C-alpha cells in the first residue's frame, strides 16, 4: 500500500498557502521543521479551549484533565519509539536541550579530565558544542569518526578509535545535510563492547524512520516534536532508567522535587526529576497528537514514500549541468538533497526559488565542520516528507534552471 498523498495534503492547511498572489508554497524544508496537520493544531487548541490548567498536584477537574493529557502524551511517545516505560521519556524543549541534559547531568557526573568522547564529522552543532564546552570546563578529549567522500561514516577508523576506550559515543542517526542513515545498531553494539555509553541524536530519524530504542540498545536517544508534525518548543530525551535514576537533576525548581526544606531538597522520581517548572503542556498534547497522526499512517509507509521521492529527486537534480549533490545514494539516505550550483551562491539559489514559492534552505545547516570537510561554505538543501510529491520535485528542478539562466 502506498501513501494517499493527495489525502494527506488536505491535513496540512499551510500547503494551500500562497506566498505571493497566485504562487502556492512548495515546502521542501521539512528537515528544518515539518508542517503541522490540522489534527495537531486542533488538539492543542482544544486543550486551551477546554482543559487548560497547571499539571500535577491540582485536584480540580481541569488540572486532572491537563495532567492526564500531558502524561498520556508521554505514554504515546514512549510507545512510538518502543521505550520499555514512559518513565524513560523526559520532556525537553528540543533535541538540543536533550543532548545538553546528558552533557550537564550524566557527563558532568561521569567524565573527568582525559576521558574520551567520540563524535562524528557529520554532527549538527547541537551535538558538537555541548561537548566543546565540556572540553573547556573538564578537559575531556574529543575525537571524531571521519566521513568518507560519499558521505558515509568510516567504521574501520571508528573501530580503532574504540581501542582508546571512550566513555561516551554520541552520533546522529541521520545526517541533516547528507541524509545519511547511519548503521546505528552496529555503532552502538561496538561502543558497548568497548564499554562506552551511547547517545543518539534522533532529530532526523524519529520523524522519518521506524525507531525502536530497545532493539537499537541506545542508552540515550534525543529528538524533537517539531520535525515530526508536532509543535515547536517540545522534545524528548529517552534514557535507560538505571542511567536516569543514577543521574543528578538537571534544572532545579518546582515539580522536580519530592521534598524541599529551607536548606536542602530531595529529587523527585523519574521522569519528573528532570522536568523543573511548568512545562510546555499544550505542546506535549500536540506532540502526542503528532505521534498518533504518524502512527495511524504508518512509519514504514512514510519511509517508503520518502524513499521514492528522494530517488526521483536525486535523479532529476543530477541531470542539471552544474549541480553537485552531497551525500550517499538514495538507498543509504533519508529524504534530503543537499547541493551546490556552480557559480551561484546557495543563498541566491534559495532566494530565487522563493519567487516561485519553493522553500528550500541555504547555508551550512548548523553543520559547519561538515561543510568545511567538503571544502564548501554552504549548500542549498531540499528535503522531503510525507506530504511532498514528484510534481514538487519537478517545480524545484524547473526553478533551478531559472536560477541558472539569471546567472548565466
Amino acid at each position: 500500500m502506498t501513501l494517499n498523498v493527495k489525502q494527506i495534503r488536505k491535513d496540512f492547511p499551510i500547503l494551500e498557502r500562497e506566498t505571493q498572489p497566485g504562487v502556492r508554497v512548495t515546502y521542501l524544508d521539512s528537515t528544518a521543521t515539518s508542517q503541522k496537520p490540522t489534527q495537531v493544531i486542533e488538539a492543542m487548541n482544544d486543550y486551551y479551549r477546554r482543559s487548560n490548567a497547571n499539571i500535577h498536584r491540582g485536584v480540580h477537574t481541569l488540572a486532572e484533565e491537563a495532567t492526564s493529557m500531558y502524561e498520556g502524551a508521554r505514554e504515546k511517545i514512549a510507545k512510538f519509539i518502543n521505550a520499555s516505560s514512559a518513565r524513560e521519556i523526559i520532556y525537553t524543549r528540543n533535541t538540543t536541550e536533550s543532548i545538553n541534559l546528558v552533557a550537564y547531568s550524566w557527563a558532568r557526573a561521569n567524565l573527568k579530565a582525559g576521558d574520551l568522547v567520540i563524535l562524528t564529522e557529520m554532527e549538527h552543532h547541537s551535538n558538537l558544542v555541548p561537548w566543546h564546552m565540556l572540553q573547556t570546563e573538564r578537559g575531556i578529549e574529543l575525537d571524531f569518526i571521519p566521513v568518507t567522500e560519499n558521505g558515509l561514516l568510516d567504521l574501520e577508523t571508528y573501530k580503532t578509535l574504540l581501542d582508546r576506550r571512550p566513555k561516551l559515543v554520541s552520533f546522529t542517526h541521520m545526517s541533516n545535510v547528507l541524509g545519511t542513515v547511519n548503521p546505528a545498531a552496529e555503532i552502538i553494539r561496538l561502543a558497548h563492547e568497548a564499554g562506552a555509553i551511547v547517545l543518539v541524536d534522533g532529530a532526523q530519524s524519529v520523524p522519518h524512520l521506524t525507531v525502536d530504542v530497545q532493539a537499537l540498545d541506545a542508552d540515550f536517544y534525543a529528538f524533537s516534536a517539531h520535525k515530526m508534525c508536532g509543535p515547536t518548543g517540545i522534545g524528548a530525551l529517552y534514557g535507560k532508567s538505571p542511567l536516569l535514576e543514577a543521574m543528578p537533576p538537571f534544572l532545579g525548581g518546582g515539580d522536580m522535587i519530592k521534598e524541599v526544606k529551607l536548606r536542602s531538597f530531595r529529587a523527585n522520581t523519574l521522569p519528573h526529576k528532570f522536568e523543573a517548572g511548568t512545562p510546555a503542556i499544550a505542546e506535549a498534547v500536540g506532540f502526542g497528537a503528532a505521534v498518533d497522526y504518524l502512527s495511524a499512517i504508518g512509519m514504514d509507509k512514510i519511509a517508503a514514500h520518502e524513499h521514492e521521492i528522494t530517488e526521483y529527486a536525486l535523479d532529476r537534480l543530477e541531470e542539471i549541468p552544474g549541480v553537485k549533490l552531497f551525500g550517499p545514494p538514495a538507498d543509504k539516505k533519508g529524504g534530503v538533497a543537499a547541493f551546490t550550483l556552480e557559480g551561484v551562491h546557495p543563498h541566491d539559489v534559495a532566494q530565487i526559488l522563493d519567487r516561485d514559492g519553493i522553500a528550500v534552505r541555504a547555508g551550512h545547516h548548523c553543520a559547519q565542520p561538515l561543510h568545511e570537510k567538503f571544502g564548501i561554505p554552504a549548500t542549498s538543501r531540499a528535503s522531503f516528507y510525507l506530504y511532498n510529491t514528484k510534481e514538487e520535485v519537478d517545480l524545484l528542478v524547473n526553478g533551478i534552471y531559472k536560477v541558472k539562466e539569471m546567472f548565466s
Partner: protein
Amino acid sequence: MDDLYREVIIEHYKNPSYRGKLDPHDISFADNNPLCGDHIQIDLRVDDSGVVTDALFDGHGCAISQASADLLMESIIGKPLEEVKKLNKDSVLELLGIELGPVRLKCALLSLKVLKAGVYGLGEASDSLVE
C-alpha cells in the same frame, strides 16, 4: 523582490572591480556572517590626511554580500575616514538600490560592518556598527 537581482547586482557579483588584497595596507580586517558563513576581508590604504586612497575586498558569499562589498569599496575611495565612520545601513541600501528583508540585510551589511570594525580598530564586526 524582482529588484533583488537587478542586473547591476549580478554584474558586481560576477565581475567585481574591487576584489583582491592590498599589500602593503594601512587597515585590514576580516569577519564572518555567523548565520551563513559568508566571509569578507577589507584592505585599505589611507593617506596622511586620513583619506582612503585605495580599497579592496576579498572573501566569499552570496550575490548580495559580494555586490554590496564591491559597491562599498567603490564609494569610499577618496573619502576621509571620518566620513566612512558615518556610513550606516541606509548608505548600503542606497548603493544597492533595493529593499531587503531581515535575513538578506545581514548579507548586505557584512562588508560595512567589517569596514567599520577595521576603521575603528575593533576586534569584531558587530551589528551595532551599522545601525
